[in-house]
């Protein structure tokens, strides 16, 4: 700690500024300094429904059995793919909100998040090092999460180094491995501080650098990364390649938070949950024609809905949803459901889209006429379907 008084003044300022959003467990009240000069702060209690990012990466947590007093392993997994991708959207969004408030987190690492594995909701914790961008109170960061320029000692944490750490966090969540740990690192048996400096600093090399294959993941050691790298679509892989090649040395080339948010919103839209049980990204489904996907397991086909504000199409399956941000040009609401594909309760097999928004839609029905569809009401799915949401239109 450089200067406890400065540090305390910073927390005081954060308390009076308030949290950037409700995704932060933010300092709320300072204690008076104790006799030895130390002090603490009060914050809200983290709800039990959130698991630590560390436990999520470990896929289990230890819980003490009240009967035997022994610690038992309890699995920690996302309920479904959608919850995991929603967590990525929320993490990117939280750091966007923080950076927009002119602050940086500084020591972003796996201990800084809690996630609800059912919904993908995110809470950022350990907010006591958050400081105005450019200010630093002596904190460095955790090896593996720190930007190379901090590891090398030539930069201090700021919003640019936060962006690097954010890419590491997202990589670990998706690929369940370390972006810089491959063959080159495994061969180097000594895990000394000097080696760490090399592999995460001056000689850091992304495991999937397209121009240098010398640090590829090793079968038997990095199986998760090898397995998951195959299933993600190119636009996700390209973002990580950019972050960990050009972005490794040039902080201006790092993916900005809003870009991550948009990429993961696309990824969430491109999930198909087939009735046969196969749930995956469209990149892992067959393409029957330019607007129809086909399940490679059971042969079921999925029509898609194209939105006027997007380059990609949304596959239609029972339970799929779109959100306020999809139907409103300037909305950032990626949680509020605007529409949902449902099965007609009276006519099984007949599918429709329910208007879950608060706006009246103008919808082209099978007689080629447009009709108003009020909130709470639905419209049938048919090959010529068009929905006019106001700002945005969508077509099958």
């Amino acid at each position: 700690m450089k200067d406890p008084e400065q540090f305390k003044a910073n927390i005081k300022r954060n308390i009076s500024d308030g949290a950037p959003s409700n995704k932060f467990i933010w300092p709320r009240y300072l204690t008076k300094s104790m006799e030895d000069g130390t002090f603490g702060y009060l914050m809200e209690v983290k709800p039990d429904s959130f698991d630590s990012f560390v436990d999520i990466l470990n896929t289990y947590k230890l819980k003490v059995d009240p009967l035997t007093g022994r610690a038992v392993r309890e699995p920690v997994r996302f309920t479904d793919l959608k919850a995991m991708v929603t967590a990525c959207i929320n993490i990117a969004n939280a750091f966007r909100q923080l950076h927009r408030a002119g602050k940086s987190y500084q020591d972003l690492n796996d201990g800084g998040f809690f996630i609800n594995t059912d919904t993908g909701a995110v809470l950022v914790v350990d907010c006591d090092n958050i400081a105005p961008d450019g200010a630093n109170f002596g904190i460095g960061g955790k090896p593996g999460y720190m930007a190379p320029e901090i590891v090398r000692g030539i930069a201090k944490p700021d919003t640019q180094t936060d962006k690097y750490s954010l890419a590491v966090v997202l990589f670990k969540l998706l690929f369940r491995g370390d972006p810089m740990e491959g063959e080159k690192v495994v061969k180097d048996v000594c895990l000394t501080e000097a080696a760490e400096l090399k592999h995460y600093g001056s000689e850091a090399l992304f495991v999937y650098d397209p121009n240098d294959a010398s640090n590829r993941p090793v079968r038997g050691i990095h199986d998760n990364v090898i397995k998951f790298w195959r299933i993600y679509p190119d636009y996700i892989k390209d973002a990580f390649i950019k972050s960990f090649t050009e972005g490794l040395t040039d902080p201006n080339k790092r993916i900005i938070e809003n870009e991550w948010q948009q990429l993961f919103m696309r990824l969430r839209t491109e999930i198909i949950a087939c009735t046969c049980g196969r749930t995956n990204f469209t990149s892992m489904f067959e393409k029957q024609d330019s607007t129809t996907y086909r399940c490679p397991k059971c042969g079921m086909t999925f029509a898609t809905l194209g939105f006027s504000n997007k380059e990609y199409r949304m596959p239609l399956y029972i339970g799929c949803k779109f959100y306020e941000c999809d139907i409103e040009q300037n909305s950032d609401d990626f949680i509020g459901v605007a529409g949902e594909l449902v099965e007609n309760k009276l006519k099984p097999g007949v599918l429709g889209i329910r208007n879950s928004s608060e706006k009246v839609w103008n919808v082209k029905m099978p007689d080629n006429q447009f009709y108003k569809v009020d909130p709470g009401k639905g419209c049938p799915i048919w090959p010529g379907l068009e929905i006019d949401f106001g700002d945005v239109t969508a077509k099958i």
Partner: protein
Amino acid sequence: MIRMTELSIGQEVELELGGKAKVAGIIGSGGQGTVYLVEYNAMKWALK
């Protein structure tokens, strides 16, 4: 990083704005020090 002096259950900690938080238990301890469960203004809070 703050390393608050070790506290015991039942102990009261004065707040800068006035009032006292009463230590009710330990939520967790780790690399970032101990986090205590405290009561303040009839509500439960975490103290770090």
